[in-house]
């Protein structure tokens, strides 16, 4: 079992590295899917089958798909790739990468200094998970319901694109006016 964990974590890291260095958005998203699938395998190796499945269904299956829909709607293709290749010069990513490496070093140092423990993996059942979810964490579940409701309403309202139908003589004025309202 540990070997499963090590291979999956390697795949995840590599896929993520490639995903964030792509120019084309769809390429990046696809590599991200791979990363998420590998993450799901990590969860499985840690004894959390339910969460593994959920990762695939929700994260890789809904969120990334949403991303792809938006990318396709905005028609971000070759132009974006070209733009990104212009923007991503070494002088742009060098310093952030360095800073992030410093952060990584510090976090690893904290973890190494701390107590070393061993993990014995035992599977946590979905049954136990649901008992805990609707038992002690019921209030949090309700709050998450609120959150999702707010998300739905917000997304629906913000994304609304009302198109007015005007006489062609008035259309130029409307073009200027539309810049302002939301």
């Amino acid at each position: 079992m540990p070997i499963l964990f090590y291979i999956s974590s390697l795949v995840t890291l590599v896929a993520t590295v490639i995903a964030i260095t792509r120019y084309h958005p769809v390429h990046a998203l696809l590599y991200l899917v791979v990363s998420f699938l590998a993450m799901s395998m990590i969860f499985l190796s840690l004894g959390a089958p339910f969460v593994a499945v959920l990762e695939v269904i929700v994260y890789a299956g809904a969120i990334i798909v949403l991303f792809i829909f938006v990318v396709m709607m905005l028609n971000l293709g070759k132009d974006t790739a070209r733009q990104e290749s212009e923007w991503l010069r070494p002088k742009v990513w060098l310093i952030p990468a360095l800073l992030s490496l410093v952060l990584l070093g510090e976090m690893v140092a904290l973890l190494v200094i701390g107590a070393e423990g061993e993990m014995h993996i035992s599977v946590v059942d979905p049954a136990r998970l649901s008992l805990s979810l609707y038992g002690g964490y019921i209030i949090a579940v309700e709050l998450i319901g609120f959150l999702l409701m707010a998300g739905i309403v917000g997304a629906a309202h913000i994304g609304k694109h009302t198109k007015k139908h005007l006489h062609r003589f008035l259309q130029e004025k409307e073009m200027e006016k539309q810049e302002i309202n939301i």
Partner: protein
Amino acid sequence: MLGYIPALPFFGFLVLSLGGRFLPRKAVAIIGAGTVVLAALLTMVFGIRWLNDPPVQGAYQQLLWNWFTIGDLSVAVRLRVDALTLVFVFIITFVGALIHIYSTAYMKHDRDYARFFACMNLFVGAMLLLVMADNLVLLYLGWEGVGLCSYLLIGFWYETPANCNAANKAFLVTRIGDTAMLIGLFLLYQKLGTFDIQSILLRSPRQFVAGAHDITLIALLLLAGGMGKSAQIPLQTWLPDAMAGPSPVSALIHAATMVTAGVYLIARMHVLFLLSPQTMAVTALIGGITLFAGGCSAMVQTDIKRVLAYSTISQIGYMFLALGLGAWGAAIFHFFTHAFFKALLFLAAGAVIESLHHEQDIFRMGGLRKRLPLVFYSFVAGAAALAALPFISAGFYSKDPILWYAYSARGGNVLLYLLSLAGAGLTAFYSTRLVLVVFGGVERTPVFEKPARAMNLPLVILAVLAVTVGFIEWPHNLLRLDLFSGFLEGVLPAPVLKGGLPSEGLFQFIAAAVTLLGIYAGYVLYRGRKEVLQKWQRSASIRAVRLFFLSGWGFDILYRTLFVRPFLFVSGIGKPDWLDWLNKGIARVSLALSSLLSVSQNGSLRWYIAGVLIGVLFIITLQLVL
């Protein structure tokens, strides 16, 4: 009953100041003038009662209420009317009543009718309080009150900045005198422990050594207070500018009553002055110089009211001269007659100004003798009294004794006598000049409207009095009739004369001759041979002298250079507000820091994330290191 005399004008002030805006004009006039008329009638009742049956202690007293008590000091509002006070109260209420009646017609067209009468009533009330006060604190209250009302009434037409400046000037200059007087009062309390006037006058001869430093200082400080209110040199610069107020104000405040408050103070505290011969000499000298300087300035002025203002300064100089010589009764008698004829002159001048629609330059008037006969005859009566025309004017009977005492009193000398004699000649000269230029000659400005009856009646009454009121006090060598000084005998001592004097009649003859000479000179220059005047106008040196007199002997320029310019310079240094640099510096530093830090608020998302990252790094580094 005594308390009603000042209470009536105060009541009038309250009603008019609170509700005068809502009352009709007639009601305002009735309340405003009526209270003072009632007070005058009440005074006359008291006077008649006094003459029939004089009170035992020589005074009427009434305790109104206890004002305050601090430790050992207890000050009460107590009124005490003795002979001296009664004279003043009579003048204030009687002349005041006539002036109020005059003003009901004079101020008829004014927008602020009620405010005028409110201030005038307040003034009459405060002045009555001043003269009827039993203790120095109450007297000082009245003193300040009349100063306030003078300020309010000089600047009555406040929309013109010049009037406000004149009011400020009056208040500031008299304030200098008031401060000196206050210090004098403090010193007096420190030495004697009481403010009660009668006990001060009784105990001072035992407490103080005559001519010592402390009593001289106190007397000088009180003299300074009197000088400020009575417009004597060097505090006289405010009175000519105070003519910016309406003519009734000039008549009441700056001729008859407020400017004589100094005379009252010195006469009332005469015991203190008698204890300090140096102060008496200073008083006499100041009086002498003032009367001469005032006379010189009066004879070249072109504004009718300014002539009368300088004339007032000069006449009060006579009163101060008399006080300084120890001739208390003569000073008060001169005040008595001066109140009548000076008020008359101001009211008549007001009538002239109104008739000509606010023309005040005398060289633009003329030929009014036929057009305004009543005003002309009353003005002549007043001018004759001013010039001290022998035998037929009140001024003669009051001014001549002062001239006599200038030579013959213990403190008198030749210099004072010559000054006062020259002053008498100048007075006659400028009075004649005024009458001839305003009423004689060719009419230059037409008469628009004749004065109303309410304005004419007081003129007539005052004119009759200006001629006749002198008859109650004759010089001793002519007739043994001294009703006035007999009345004041209990309060004011008689003057002490030097020995070995020539006869009084000689001095009277000289005085009369000088007066007639002055009148003749005025007649010649302004009616007879006018070419002498024109020759003088062309001479540069005479023009320079004339300018010097016109500016009141240059006191305004002197004070401006000595006090006003340095003060403005020093305050100009502080204008950038150096002491505020700490506050301004703090503000400037925080603004600089803020503009520095606002660079980090550039709206770029990536900078913000980087900021968070650097913060986290910092915290974790601290955690690892420490």
